[in-house]
């Protein structure tokens, strides 16, 4: 009879299912452990409080209430989000122009330019910021250039240790994050669409406005999202080039951990920023998901 054979198969099947579950646990479990658990820990921390340097593990919304009551925290929060918006707007214009320029080059030139964009991404973040600090300082190249072309008669200290310095630094450092997704989106537009547009009588500008721009919009949305999220949470650039006048939300969070040793409050501030970042990502996802692409 086939009885024993069937039993073996059933046992094998159980074993296979076990192996499959283990595989799934590893694939989804590891990221969950390393990403979700720290985030959840932070979330839990944000409901606790510190009293006399001692952590009090009691649930409460005190930290959030404190954030909402404090004018200075809300001001820094609003100012940081607005500054991130400015950085994103500047990079959207510069990044789109650069991506368009690169995508219109041919063959080797194009890929050398893309490579030149990627190399800074591999460099240390701190080195890049120090380089910017040198560039923007009183004796920096920016001042020298402006004096050389006669726009300034003496070096200006407007470019360092204030919010403008933070804006410029973040714009420069985050520019590749804007250019790359737009470049990819532009590259994915088949030439036949541009030919068809011109064939139907559209001028180059009309083709850009009606075909290129709408079809590359998902890339621009992705780039803007990267820029905004990275700029709003950054604390190193403001720390190094912002001085006292360039205080941002990221620095506020940092100081709760590094100086005030008020981890619960720092965690609450982080959770608030995380909420903003998640909202931006969700919004970007909705904007980038076109009505036509996946049908």
């Amino acid at each position, binding site marked *: 009879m086939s009885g024993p054979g069937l039993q073996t198969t059933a046992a094998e099947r159980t074993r296979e299912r076990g192996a499959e579950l283990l595989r799934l646990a590893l694939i989804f479990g590891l990221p969950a452990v390393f990403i979700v658990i720290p985030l959840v820990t932070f979330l839990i921390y944000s409901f606790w409080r510190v009293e006399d340097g001692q952590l009090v593990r009691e649930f409460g919304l005190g930290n959030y209430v404190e954030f909402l009551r404090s004018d200075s925290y809300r001001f820094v929060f609003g100012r940081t989000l607005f500054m991130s918006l400015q950085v994103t707007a500047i990079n959207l214009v510069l990044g789109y122009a650069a991506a368009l320029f690169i995508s219109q080059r041919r063959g080797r030139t194009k890929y050398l330019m893309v490579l030149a964009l990627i190399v800074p991404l591999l460099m240390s973040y701190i080195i890049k910021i120090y380089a910017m600090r040198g560039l923007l300082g009183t004796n920096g190249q920016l001042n020298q250039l402006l004096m050389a072309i006669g726009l300034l008669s003496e070096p200006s200290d407007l470019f360092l240790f204030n919010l403008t310095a933070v804006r410029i630094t973040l714009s420069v450092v985050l520019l590749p994050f804007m250019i790359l997704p737009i470049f990819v989106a532009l590259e994915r537009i088949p030439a036949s669409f541009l030919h068809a547009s011109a064939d139907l009588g559209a001028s180059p500008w009309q083709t850009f406005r009606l075909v290129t721009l709408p*079809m590359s919009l998902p890339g621009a949305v992705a780039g803007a999202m990267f820029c905004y999220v990275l700029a709003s949470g950054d604390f190193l650039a403001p720390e190094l080039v912002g001085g006292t006048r360039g205080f941002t939300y990221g620095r506020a969070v940092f100081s709760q951990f590094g100086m005030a040793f008020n981890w619960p409050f720092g965690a609450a501030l982080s959770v608030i920023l995380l909420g903003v970042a998640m909202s931006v990502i969700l919004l970007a996802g909705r904007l980038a998901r076109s009505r036509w692409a996946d049908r």
Partner: protein
Amino acid sequence: MTAETKSGRLVLHGVSKHYGTTRVLDGIDLSVESGEFLTILGPSGSGKTTILRMIGGFTEPTSGSILFDEVDVTDVPIHRRPFNTVFQDYALFPHMTVVQNVGYGLRVRGLRRREIETRAHEVLALVALEGLEQRYPAQLSGGQKQRVALARALICEPRLILLDEPLAALDAELRRRMQQFLKSLQRRVDITFIYVTHDQEEAIGMSDRICVINHGVIEQVGPPLEVYYRPRSGFVATFFGDNNLINGRVVERTEPGIWRLETGLGPITCSDDLLSGYEEGAPVTLAVRPEAIGLRAVVGAGTEAGEADNALRGTVNRVEFSGPISEVTVQVGEQTLLAKMTSTVSALPVQPGDAVRVTWNSGDGAIIAGDAEHHYRPDEEST
């Protein structure tokens, strides 16, 4: 430009395209008459699409000029040419609905939205696509996309429409229906069509004239019947189905209207209208279609000529039965000739090894100058 001259005459004058040392097109001279349906036909890599792209303005010719109604348009940018293209992949804008795609050409001309929609509906009715106005291209079938692409070109009222293998992506049944549709549409709208394809049947079925191109050179331009029955090169003779090429030379006129050729298979007669313009002694190739050839059994040692003008003795090599048509190859002297017989019960049931007489009329076939060879083999096309 007056309102009456709806379509115009297009002339290519010595147009060439070189990429480095590679010659894609070499000295193309072609004129397309107003209101004509002209097909540019050739195997892949022959340069046919390059011609279309140069007319459309997507590729610049290395030398030569393109005239439209006597005006040189060689350097006119794409968007200023009074031509529209139906692309092979249709190139419908994915982010626009059907009606937006169709109205695009009018939109960039600055027409009012209401007028654009009215005319888009008219053109969509012309291509039988009413009711699909608000769909996106991704929601359409291949045949529907094809008609949207056509409507998008038609709405601009161009004087010339360029079609780049527009039916290549459709299945056989749909392709046949679209062929008839395209042809009747072209008559109705009275616009010059230049149609590129590698499909011989498509070309024969739709065109007023066919321009056969191979290796960047025009082999022959003419109406379908002429290109099929009177090929002027070995390539053309063998590109449209099978053909028997018999090399020889003109000997003399034996009686009014009949010439004698000396060939490797012996003397062959050939009627006057095939040979006009050739002198005695000129090397020529006779191309005879397999379907023009008849086979007769040799009864005893008889040498009766029968009713046919040419009768050559041969031996059957192979018989391939494939439904309505049987292909029979016959060894005649050094050469193998192919005959296609209608598979009827009363037809000669030949078998390999049978002695037969291969016959055809002196008016059947075509004369090609020089010693032509079989230039085209279908299996070469994939390379």
